[in-house]
């Protein structure tokens, strides 16, 4: 009873802020402009919507692989490094949380644009004559999203690495296994739940990204969240925008259900 009372405000908030409005969105998707499932069948045939879906999945996949790999290295330093290394790693993991996603996206524009720091420098040393296309395309989006998501990928990995029994690694070495082999055949498999959890979190986050792709994609690398925004705020097509939203939510829900079949929520923090 006491626990239920403590949970009540959170549940109320979730219902009012998420569940109720989402039901409204579902309603739009089957009533606008005319009642029926017309928007969903349009979705299945609309070439633009499909290409955006595929691009979103592709970007999310690349971002996930790069983020988890980078986070794995950082987490190893954070959990298993020397005391000094741990402090540096902790700093690198926590500081990004204090800087707004918008600030970071513009920071990347300043670095990556045609007259940005990287291109100017490469031209000044004569390495390139024409600026490289680093932003306003998929590459820029992937860089910005990866940068934002690495810290989120760290925590499930850290949880898995912390709970690992050090003696098992000693045992592997004692049985003749090199450090490299021990890493790949013992350490990595033993942190499997952390890798799955970390990948799922990054992937699900990536699917709904809006600000970073909107700024670093420059309208040329539209992802699903930006498409929804365009359908609702720019072309008066609320029904289609709502239908895409519903499909995205269902897809993410299915992924989360899959995640929790393999990983317990406790292992994600």
């Amino acid at each position, binding site marked *: 009873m006491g626990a239920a009372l403590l949970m009540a405000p959170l549940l109320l908030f979730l219902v009012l802020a998420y569940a109720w409005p989402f039901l409204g969105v579902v309603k739009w998707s089957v009533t606008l402009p005319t009642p029926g499932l017309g928007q969903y069948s349009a979705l299945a045939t609309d070439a633009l919507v499909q290409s955006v879906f595929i691009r979103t999945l592709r970007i999310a996949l690349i971002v996930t692989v790069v983020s988890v790999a980078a986070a794995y290295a950082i987490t190893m330093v954070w959990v298993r490094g020397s005391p000094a290394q741990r402090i540096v790693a902790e700093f690198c993991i926590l500081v990004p949380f204090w800087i707004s996603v918008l600030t970071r996206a513009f920071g990347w524009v300043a670095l990556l644009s045609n007259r940005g720091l990287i291109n100017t420098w490469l031209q000044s040393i004569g390495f390139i004559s024409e600026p490289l296309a680093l932003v306003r395309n998929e590459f820029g989006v992937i860089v910005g999203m990866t940068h934002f998501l690495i810290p989120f990928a760290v925590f499930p990995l850290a949880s898995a690495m912390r709970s690992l029994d050090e*003696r098992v690694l*000693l*045992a592997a070495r004692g049985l*003749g*296994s090199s450090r490299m082999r021990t890493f790949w*055949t*013992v350490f990595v498999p033993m942190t499997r739940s952390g890798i799955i959890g970390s990948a799922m979190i990054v992937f699900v986050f990536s699917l709904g990204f809006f600000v970073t792709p909107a700024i670093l994609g420059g309208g040329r690398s539209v992802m699903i969240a930006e498409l929804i925004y365009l359908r609702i705020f720019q072309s008066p097509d609320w029904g289609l925008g709502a239908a895409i939203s519903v499909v995205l939510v269902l897809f993410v829900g299915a992924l989360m259900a899959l995640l929790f079949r393999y990983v317990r929520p406790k292992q994600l923090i």
Partner: protein
Amino acid sequence: MQQPGRAAEIKAIGIGKSFGSFRALDNLSLNIGRGEFLTLLGPSGSGKTTFLMILAGFVQPTEGKLFSDGVDITERPAEQRAAGMVFQGYALFPHMSVEANIAFPLKVRKKSTAEIKRRVAEMIERVGLKGHETKLPAQLSGGQQQRVALARALVFEPGVLLLDEPFSALDKSLRGQMQAEMKRLHQETGTTFVFVTHDQSEALALSSRVAIFNHGKLLQVGAPDEVYDRPANRFVAEFLGEINMLPLKGVKRADDGATALCEDRAITLRGNAEAVNGNAILAIRPEHMSIAREAAAGENGIAATAVGSTYLGAATKLDLTTRQGAKVTVSVPNEVAAAALSKGNSVWLTWPAEKGFLLPDGG
């Protein structure tokens, strides 16, 4: 399975290890013979585990040298030493099946698939894990996990097997069973076994030699009966089991031992009486003393009063106080204890001359 010649002979010379200002191991020199079963015995923090970790190559000694079959291996990393190791808590690979766990050291050594299959099957048979090949460690009982750990450490025929308190997590009956099994594996493989424990009865039951540690120092090495019957000092004497200590006066060396005064009675000792003169302590195990109506002339004996008893089933532990107030415990047949307690409580304690030994006074 293995030629006894494959077993390693290990020589440690002046090994020391400091962790900051803490001296974990001090100037330890020890030879471990080919095919020997050596137990490192001591209380926790005595340095026995540190020495095992140095043998395995997981800990680098601060000073001293380590030789295996005459080759200096002091600087050799653990993965190149090829010592089998069984950890406290087993340290099995949780994501690998029983079979894969046992095959691991062979795969590392790039043996052929056929050979790996054959040797793993052989090992599984040997440790009695048939039918459990595809199970994960989490699906096994403690005793079965122990067997996997032993199989994994022995399958690549290491020159030496290192065991770090492998039985500490098992209940008593399983413990006895695993001890017997380990003794059998030692005989069958002929490998050198180095076994760490803080359990003195386990050490005495299993080993061909026992090395006793305290405060980072190796105090004594010897066969179980040797260290039990002739401990080098008071710590060893007390650590290996219950012992009675009686103050002696006027110790004088004689041809084959010594003579002394114990509670104003002349007694004799045979055997170790080296370097002790004047005052000393007489140490005798409880099972080596008997209760008598009186001590004959020339027999070792002192008068005492029985004050209490503990029934142990096969025997009774009888507590006595001597005339000068020393407390003594003897282990005697049940009816002897009952008789001693009933008839006025006044009895004589006697012991054979060769069963008592001298310890330096206060040391």
